[in-house]
């Protein structure tokens, strides 16, 4: 069992961006869509196009992300889409309050005569909802594949986090392979003693309890390791003055472009919604016409 980061250098536009730029741009889009509560497809669609372009520019191989996309597809269609289609809730109240032709009824509790109407408004809302969610998700998915784990600590420091918080993050990334190795050794040692990892028997409580031979040794050893690290850091006077960082981050013109684009997206969403009243939910005529002619 090998713990490997999904990250691989690919020499792409996305990877040449400063990690701060990528975090800030992602938050600009997420907050641009959520703070002013944008539900207008004319705004969501261009943002989706931008997100998709950035995702494709990352050039992540399909075999790497296949499982993630299956999960996203199931999540979007079954949880987000189906829920929106049946209930019409989770967005603006206008989804269910505006008059809209009924496409068909779904018998949820047929015996009690409870038939859920699926309206054109609900159908359009479900599509909108999935697209909106996807716009945000495809900005988050490439991060572990395209961002060097060694720069997270520096990136957070440069975004304003304290030395202690940034160092915690940096240290966590460095500890990870060590503890993963310890965990592997523990699993192997317990297996050698007859521990059956693949066939945990018994009831639920028993099954969870039986995980303790794998968890306890690693956790307890880590607390001992921690004391040694604390001693080493104290001896080097950690925390007595401002720290310097080995990795340096500098913004390039492309970063300023992306940061500007992010700011523009956020400001435009806010101004359109609060200044001009554009961005609310509505069902476009072409969608209604598609069903009712």
């Amino acid at each position, binding site marked *: 069992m090998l713990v490997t980061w999904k990250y691989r250098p690919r020499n792409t536009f996305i990877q040449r961006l400063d990690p701060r730029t990528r975090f800030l741009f992602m938050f600009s889009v997420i907050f641009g869509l959520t703070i002013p509560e944008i539900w207008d497809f004319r705004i969501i669609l261009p943002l989706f196009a931008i997100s998709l372009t950035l995702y494709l520019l990352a050039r992540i191989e399909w075999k790497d992300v296949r499982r993630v996309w299956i999960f996203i597809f199931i999540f979007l269609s079954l949880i987000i889409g189906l829920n929106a289609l049946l209930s019409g809730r989770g967005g603006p109240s206008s989804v269910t309050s505006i008059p809209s032709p009924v496409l068909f009824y779904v018998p949820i509790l047929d015996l009690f005569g409870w038939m859920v109407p699926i309206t054109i408004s609900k159908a359009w809302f479900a599509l909108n909802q999935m697209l909106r969610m996807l716009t945000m998700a495809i900005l988050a998915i490439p991060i572990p594949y395209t961002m060097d784990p060694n720069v997270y600590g520096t990136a957070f420091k440069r975004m304003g986090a304290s030395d202690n918080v940034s160092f915690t993050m940096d240290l966590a990334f460095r500890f990870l392979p060590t503890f993963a190795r310890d965990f592997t050794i523990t699993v192997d040692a317990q297996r050698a003693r007859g521990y059956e990892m693949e066939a945990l028997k018994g009831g639920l409580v028993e099954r969870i*309890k039986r995980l303790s031979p794998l968890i306890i040794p690693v956790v307890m050893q880590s607390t001992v390791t921690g004391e040694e690290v604390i001693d080493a850091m104290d001896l080097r006077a950690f925390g007595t003055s401002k720290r310097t960082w080995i990795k340096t981050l500098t913004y390039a013109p492309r970063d300023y472009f992306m940061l500007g684009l992010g700011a523009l997206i956020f400001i435009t969403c806010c101004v359109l919604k609060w200044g001009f009243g554009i961005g609310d939910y509505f069902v476009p005529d072409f969608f209604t016409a598609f069903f009712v002619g």
Partner: protein
Amino acid sequence: MNDKSTWEFGTRQVVYGAIGAALYGVFSWATNIFPLPAAGNITFRPAIAVLIFFAVAYGPWVGLLAGFIGNTLGDGLTGWGFYWHWSLGNGLIGLVAGLAMAGISDFKARGDIIKAVGWGIAGIAVGMLFASLTEMWVGGIDLNTALFGYFTPAFLGNTVVTVILLPILMIAFAAVASRRGR
């Protein structure tokens, strides 16, 4: 074992925050490889007990950082991406559970273990409620889905794991700490 200044944030908190985060990340990732059989859509994440243990043993800052960074690492290792509200929700679990630290003097005393489990469950309630309700805003789900589709299974699953594994971790820690002498 630990000093009782709950909100201190020094070298000890930095190191144990990082260790807690790395362990939480590794165990979260590992349980994806060896999934625990579960009923319905209830998810079991044994790693949550490790997070709460670090919070209880080393305080709220350690809990907050271990939860936030650990969840980010776990998601990163499995390749899901970065979902800030779930990471923050996990951080809140640790932060609230860490408030138990000041009231715990003996890690193998029944009363202290119950206290730790109680704070842990309170942390799970706060953290998962935050993440589930934020999902309404970020993901656009409705209140029913947030409460019954996200919060309830996450709360129940994490609570079961905490009630079973946290006492075992605390008793083991008491033995290790007494041997170490600090």
